[in-house]
């Protein structure tokens, strides 16, 4: 875990070195495409989203959040964004990395690569950075079709076509900006490396289905960054570390060793983004037997087999490897008969409860912890709907705790603990209900 985190921490050192040496540095958003492409063109990538978590965890975020507000950005905007906007404003004013910046700070970029993946706030955030940097921005498009629209005939092929054309435009832009040609052989190499890395990382996380859960969500949060925030060329080393992690976690599964040093009384799914400033809160709940076994936002999806026969375009090969589409995702998740029913339900009603609720069944969850965030509507808006699916389909109740990813002042751990204690009775009640209804756990 620490070796994995060290890879991510190194990103900032390497980034600052690149800037000093006049090599291109890009600030990048988390999405499936750009880091690999940029690494093929020798651009060093740095992830401000990850930096937000570091600032939150180290207590440095407050200064940057205050500065962001002083710059005129409303305080309900994304905590990662405000942390970055405040940091950038200070860096521009000082002409150097702010001295209080943890981890040595982020280097100044010559390029910003944003995306509409996950939420729209992300490209608005990078657009707002234009106030402080004369760095060109590219916004990588992704598809965010609704479920029914994603299942229309031919939808997946059209989505792939869109992504391929979008990424071709991106490469053309980069070639013009950097004055060099894309290395297509490297992209194919990245594709294979990324696929293998994601496969192993998925296998590690799949093990948390075991009872008792061998790896707590805190460990997941500590080790996930290497899979998400990387420059592209360290994939093989990171895969090796994840294989080691797999062996360790498997050994815990085989010996029924729980992730928490207490009896596993409640298996919990965490919904939303975590309180990076207060991860110790999970330990307080662990003392009560709460084992957080999974979450929705950062967990890798299952890496499906993809037939790339006859496809020679390296971008198309990359897109098809990284993006499966909804139909295939349903086929991978459900048994064939169930998959047909899920698709029919979507075409009829426009949604399927079973997709949303599947995770609580697979991971045998007793409760869902909904972390509603003042500053993140992308992850917070769907929470109540998802919670209703959990209850309706699998009789799994939810608790809502308000907080934030970066702003410590918005989270009240004492209040959250009080709520949690009361919630245990609710979980016990529904456990009994599930048992009576033969729902499996």
């Amino acid at each position, binding site marked *: 875990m620490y070796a994995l985190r060290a890879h991510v921490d190194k990103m900032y050192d390497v980034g600052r070195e690149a800037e000093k040496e006049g090599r291109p540095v890009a600030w990048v958003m988390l999405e499936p495409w750009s880091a690999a492409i940029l690494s093929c063109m020798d651009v060093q990538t740095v992830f401000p989203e990850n930096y937000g978590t570091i600032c939150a965890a180290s207590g440095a975020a407050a200064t940057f959040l205050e500065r962001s507000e002083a710059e005129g950005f409303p305080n309900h905007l994304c905590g990662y964004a405000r942390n970055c906007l405040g940091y950038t404003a200070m860096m521009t004013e000082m002409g150097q990395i702010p001295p209080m910046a943890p981890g040595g700070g982020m280097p100044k970029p010559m390029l910003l690569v944003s995306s509409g993946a996950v939420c729209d706030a992300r490209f608005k955030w990078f657009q707002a950075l234009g106030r402080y940097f004369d760095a060109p921005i590219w916004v990588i498009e992704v598809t*965010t079709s*609704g479920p029914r629209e994603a299942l229309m005939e031919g939808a997946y092929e059209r989505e792939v076509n869109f992504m391929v054309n979008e990424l071709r435009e991106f490469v053309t832009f980069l070639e013009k900006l950097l004055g060099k040609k894309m290395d297509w052989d490297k992209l194919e190499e990245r594709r294979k490396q990324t696929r293998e890395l994601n496969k192993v990382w998925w296998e590690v996380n799949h093990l948390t289905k075991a009872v008792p859960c061998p790896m707590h969500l805190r460990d997941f949060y500590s080790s996930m960054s290497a899979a998400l925030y990387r420059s592209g060329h360290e994939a093989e080393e990171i895969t090796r570390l994840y294989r080691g992690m797999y062996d360790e976690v498997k050994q815990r599964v085989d010996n029924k060793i729980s992730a928490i040093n207490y009896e596993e009384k409640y298996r919990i799914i965490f919904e939303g983004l975590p309180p990076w400033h207060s991860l110790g809160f999970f330990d307080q709940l662990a003392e009560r037997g709460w084992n957080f076994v999974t979450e929705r936002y950062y967990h890798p999806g299952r890496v499906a087999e993809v037939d790339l026969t006859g496809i020679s375009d390296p971008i198309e090969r990359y897109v098809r490897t990284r993006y499966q589409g909804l139909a295939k995702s349903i086929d991978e998740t459900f048994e064939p008969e169930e998959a047909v029913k899920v698709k029919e339900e979507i075409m009829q009603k426009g949604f399927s409860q079973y997709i949303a609720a599947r995770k609580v069944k697979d991971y045998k969850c007793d409760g869902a912890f909904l972390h509603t965030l003042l500053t993140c*509507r992308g992850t917070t808006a769907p929470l109540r709907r998802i919670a209703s699916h959990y209850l309706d389909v699998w009789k799994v109740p939810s608790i809502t705790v308000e907080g934030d990813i970066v702003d410590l002042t918005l989270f009240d751990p004492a209040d959250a603990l009080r709520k949690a204690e009361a919630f245990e009775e609710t979980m016990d009640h529904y456990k009994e209900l599930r048992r009576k209804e033969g729902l499996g756990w």
Partner: protein
Amino acid sequence: MVEVASKGLSRVKEIYQDRPKRVKELKAEGKKVMGYICLYPVLEMMTALDFVPYRLFGDMREPITRADTYLPTVVCPFLRSLLDLGLKGKYDFLDGIVTSHICDVGAQIPDVWNTFVQTPYSHGIDTPHTTHQSSREREKGLLQDFQKSLEDYTGQKLTTEKLKQAIEIHNQQRALVRELYDLRKPDPPLISGVETIQVMKALMSLPVEEGNSLLREVISEVKGRKNGPPKKPARLLVWGSIIDDTALVEMIEGLEANVVMDDTCVGSRAYFPDVKLTKDPLEGLAYRYLVELKCPRTFKEASSNRNRKDYKADLESRFSYLRDYARDWKANGVILESVRYCDTHGYEVPGVTDYLNNIGLPNIYLEHDYSEGALAPLRTRVQGFLEITQ
């Protein structure tokens, strides 16, 4: 056919105060009503298949009592209110709903609506975020999907001919709205900001031909009126997120100000760009709805030189139309407003402020939580702002 007793601005007020009434009358006559949210669902395609496009709004005068079960309170109060009305059955007359990827919460509304409100038909257009070439092609492809979906629902073919006719009629409405907006240029304006919002909302509640007739009456009435808004020292442009109720503008115009122009989606953003008639009408529609609509939800930047960034040039490229509005409508101040938790406009505010400051236009930013009660404290701030502009 129902006899309409009142005309012009009186008729507008009637519709504004009871929007569903007319559309329910049309339903009783056999018309179908298609609800839509925001500017990105393509109206022409609905009109071409004989739907009455009916824009969905919230109600800032109605307390939100049901939506909080399904949407957390830290999301846009306008969309919460809209959903709340749906859950209370206030939109039960809809034959369908069309949504698009307007913002992060807006992208969730279809799933919530389909789960808890339910209408006979729904379709979401996954409008891209940029105007890249690939995005324009994607937008056209999405409109082809929308066409197929509508045809499957109605059992009718959406022919090129029908679509071209619909484009022409909707473009006529846009031209009429621009003609109406020209009547805000004189000093004092011939029509107030409050009345303009009422007209806009009325138009968004009627079939397009009926809306065009009403608009012609309004324009004729306003041109000839002797009792228009009084002259006031401040002429304001209002920029920002949705204003679907007159309360905010009423508050402003109750002070020493006329609201002479807007850059909002129940206003110029909805009506100023036309659809260019192209051989394949979907090309023109895709271009207008993705590229021409001016809303911060679409990422645009100075495209003259992608290899470097120039902040001033970028601001000029994104916001110079505001300078043109201010010049043409002789605005001497700008109110930037946004509903609380609107991230799209929230990120935009410092950039717009920078631009307006660069061109010497006084401006103030107001955030409100989409309720009448929230406006009272803003009155003092607007008063203070007006003193500065004078």
